């Protein structure tokens, strides 16, 4: 029996004050807690039903309006109002319409650092694993329990280690890599486990690209998508947060429930076909798929790097007459930076509709519901039937480069045709 610990075992040991291993049950202290507008109203109701008066520490809590931002319906507006009242009463961090998507804001605004234990009432909370935080999605009632007590119970997960060797080629990105892995292990391949992503291919990626990978850990069923912190991590975190931190590394003799090793050098762009995220195929195997709508944005791929590569492809081009493109930068800061770099003009001249930072196009609330029979190619992380608000539409997932190339030609297109 090896005595070393995985990243998850170490973080849950630190935060519970016990020496724990996989399958132990712990009650652990939380460093940060987040809710969005699809989950916070129920959490506020649970908070009241639990007869609590005050949250445990306002500085460690954030609520974000992003899923329906700005509100498209009066029912939603009422739920937003409840959030604003609660946030003001409790003095927690609050991000209103236009600020951005929760999983961009939480790290961007410096709320999470390496070694942290974080919960969010949103399944893509696993995103911050990219900066070495154990972050995981929970439901509204767990959120309420967390903001009252500052703690949550966890079963310490086993870990599935992914070793990614080689380097991604030109025109192949982090999104293609994570889609490939999900297709390989399937939608419940890592259920109940922590995923650890490492190897030279990951080390080669920027922090923004690493967020894309950790963001989709949930799509293989994982509890979290952890990475180790390196110099890039330390620099990025120091640029965004004033919190002190100590990175957590897995021991060389840690116990892994599963280990898979890959060489990613020959990987081509990947597409997830309707209607599951693990229905993945290399773009050369896809066949002809005409596109009526493209979406670039979301917590998966709405960052500056994503916008820059899309702009590189869209510059001087016009979108196909048969297609539409919606672009949603993941935060206000990103939108401002994109403006300063001239990206907005490129998008608008190409014919894109640029919308408020938010989740709308991904999650079917507003900002781009497709019509019956339409094919959408999106940089989002889910393509379930009805996901974008119409159960008679078809959603394909790909990288920002793939989406940009595809809306120009009007069919799903290998972006390398535009880049090489």
């Amino acid at each position, binding site marked *: 029996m090896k005595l070393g610990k995985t990243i998850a075992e170490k973080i849950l040991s630190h935060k519970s004050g016990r020496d724990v291993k996989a399958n132990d*049950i712990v*009650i652990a202290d939380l460093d940060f807690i987040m809710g969005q*507008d*699809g*989950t916070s*109203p*129920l959490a506020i*109701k*649970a908070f009241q*039903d*639990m*007869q*609590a008066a005050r949250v445990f520490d306002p500085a460690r809590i954030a609520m974000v309006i992003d*899923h*329906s931002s700005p509100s498209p*319906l009066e*029912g*939603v507006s009422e*739920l937003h109002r409840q959030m604003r009242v609660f946030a003001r009463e409790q003095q927690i961090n609050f991000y209103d319409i236009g600020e951005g998507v929760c999983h961009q804001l939480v790290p961007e605004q410096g709320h999470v650092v390496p070694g942290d234990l974080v919960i969010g*009432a*949103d*399944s893509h*909370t696993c995103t911050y694993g990219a900066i070495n935080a154990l972050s995981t*999605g*929970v*439901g*509204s*009632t*767990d959120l*309420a*329990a967390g903001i*009252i*007590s500052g*703690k*949550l*119970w966890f*079963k310490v997960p086993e870990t599935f280690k992914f070793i990614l060797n080689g380097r991604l080629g030109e025109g192949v990105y982090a999104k293609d890599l994570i889609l490939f892995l999900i297709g390989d292990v399937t*939608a*419940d391949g890592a*259920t*109940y486990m922590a995923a650890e992503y490492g190897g030279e291919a990951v080390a080669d990626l920027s922090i923004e690209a690493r967020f894309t990978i950790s963001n989709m850990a*949930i799509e293989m*069923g994982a*509890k979290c998508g952890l990475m180790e912190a390196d110099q890039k991590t330390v620099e990025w975190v120091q640029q965004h947060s004033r919190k002190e931190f100590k990175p957590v590394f897995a021991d060389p003799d840690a116990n892994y429930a599963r280990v898979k090793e890959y060489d990613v050098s020959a990987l081509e762009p990947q597409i997830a076909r309707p209607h*599951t995220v693990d229905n993945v195929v290399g773009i050369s195997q896809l066949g002809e798929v005409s596109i009526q709508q493209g979406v670039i944005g979301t917590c998966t791929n709405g960052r500056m790097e994503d916008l820059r590569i899309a702009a590189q492809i869209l510059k001087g081009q016009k979108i196909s007459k048969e297609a539409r493109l919606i672009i949603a930068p993941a935060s206000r800061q990103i939108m401002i930076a994109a403006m300063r770099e001239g990206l907005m003009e490129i998008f608008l001249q190409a014919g894109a509709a640029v919308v408020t930072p938010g989740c709308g196009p991904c*999650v*079917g*609330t507003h900002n781009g519901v497709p019509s019956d029979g339409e094919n959408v190619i999106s940089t989002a992380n*889910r393509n*379930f*039937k*009805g*996901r974008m*608000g119409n*159960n008679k539409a078809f959603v394909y997932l790909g990288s920002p480069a793939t989406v940009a190339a595809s809306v120009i030609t009007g069919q799903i297109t290998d972006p390398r045709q535009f880049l090489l």
Partner: protein
Amino acid sequence: MKLAGKCHKFGNDVNTDYIISGRHKFKTLDMKELAKHVMEDLDPEFYTRVSKGDFIVAGTNFGCGSSREQAPLAIINADIGAVIAKSFARIFYRNCINTGLPLIECDTDQINVGDQLKIDLDQGTLLNETTGAVIKIAPLPPVMLKILSEGGLVEHFKKHGTFQFEE
């Protein structure tokens, strides 16, 4: 806890957007209203065919996708007695315990549409009265049994003020 009812069957990877669509779940907290739309994108008539205490029976990875608690709440409000599946996605699993929706993990290949089931959660037994099969149920971890037996996490917190798993 004893449960009895007839079965409605679904496949693998039934995600929470199928359980309750994004078209509906963001605009109201009225769970009775959301209950009318349960499983709509997979089976538009589902809600009309449910009798109180019936079971949803499914394959692997039931409840994958989003963390939204509207999924188990809509199922509870549609008067479903329990969800029975070969395996569950983890956030959904926790949300069911927290909201008081019983979950049963077992081999559902032995259960068909319309079968009448009799379940005793304390004994850990599932009897398919239609086929006569007795199916083994995986026991819930003690922490989850405690929360479920107290009626869910809200009741647990009302009683103890915080997480309290020791006697």
